[in-house]
């Protein structure tokens, strides 16, 4: 299983998205995003914004990073703390 997390405004668009997805071979954050396009087009559009970063097991990575079983994948909009 791969755990999906959506922070900030992305969380509003991710309502109804399953919190976990099945792991399979050759999975990447880009493929997981594309997989969401059919059922969640508004979320897909948000995730495709260039400012959105992703982290894998809490480390920021690129969209083509391999995603393995047991991973935690988070989608991070621009931060606004402080």
């Amino acid at each position, binding site marked *: 299983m791969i755990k999906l997390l959506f922070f900030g*405004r992305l969380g509003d668009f991710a309502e109804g998205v399953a919190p976990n997805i099945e792991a399979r071979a050759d999975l990447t954050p880009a493929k997981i995003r594309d997989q969401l396009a059919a059922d969640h087009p508004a979320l897909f559009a948000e995730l495709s914004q260039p400012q959105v970063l992703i*982290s894998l097991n809490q480390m920021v990575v690129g969209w083509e990073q391999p995603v393995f079983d047991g991973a935690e994948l988070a989608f991070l909009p621009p*931060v*606004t*703390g402080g």
Partner: protein
Amino acid sequence: MKPTIRIQTEDFDLGAEYQLLRQLDAAVGAVVTFTGLVRDLEKESSINSLTLQHYPGMTESLLQDIVDQAAARWDLIGLTVIHRVGELLPSDQIVFVGVASQHRADAFEAAQFVMDYLKTKATFWKKVEQDGQQHWVESKDSDQAASQRWANDD
């Protein structure tokens, strides 16, 4: 260098945090503190509340990384970062950065660096409630520019 990093829902006591930094070491000759507050984000109408979200675990690591960078860059004795999460009201304290050093220049610059990096790199997100409507706060280009100048400084 003594680092202190806390993410918490409860308020913090500026005086108590200052005293901790002041009393760290007899070599402390300067303490700079910064406190960020909830302010009205929009000019037309005032906000009712602000909710701060973070990414538990990752946010602490990112703050640690910022503190480590500051410690490598300036001669510091103590550095405290406190950031609140959860629901806050106008004028509430959000964030505290306190730096103790021998000389003031290190403390001033390190405090500004930590705030500039915190605002652009640490995984916190603000949601505002205003007139019964909620919206997520947009990031600001001016914050990116403030952060960028430290990268150009090397």
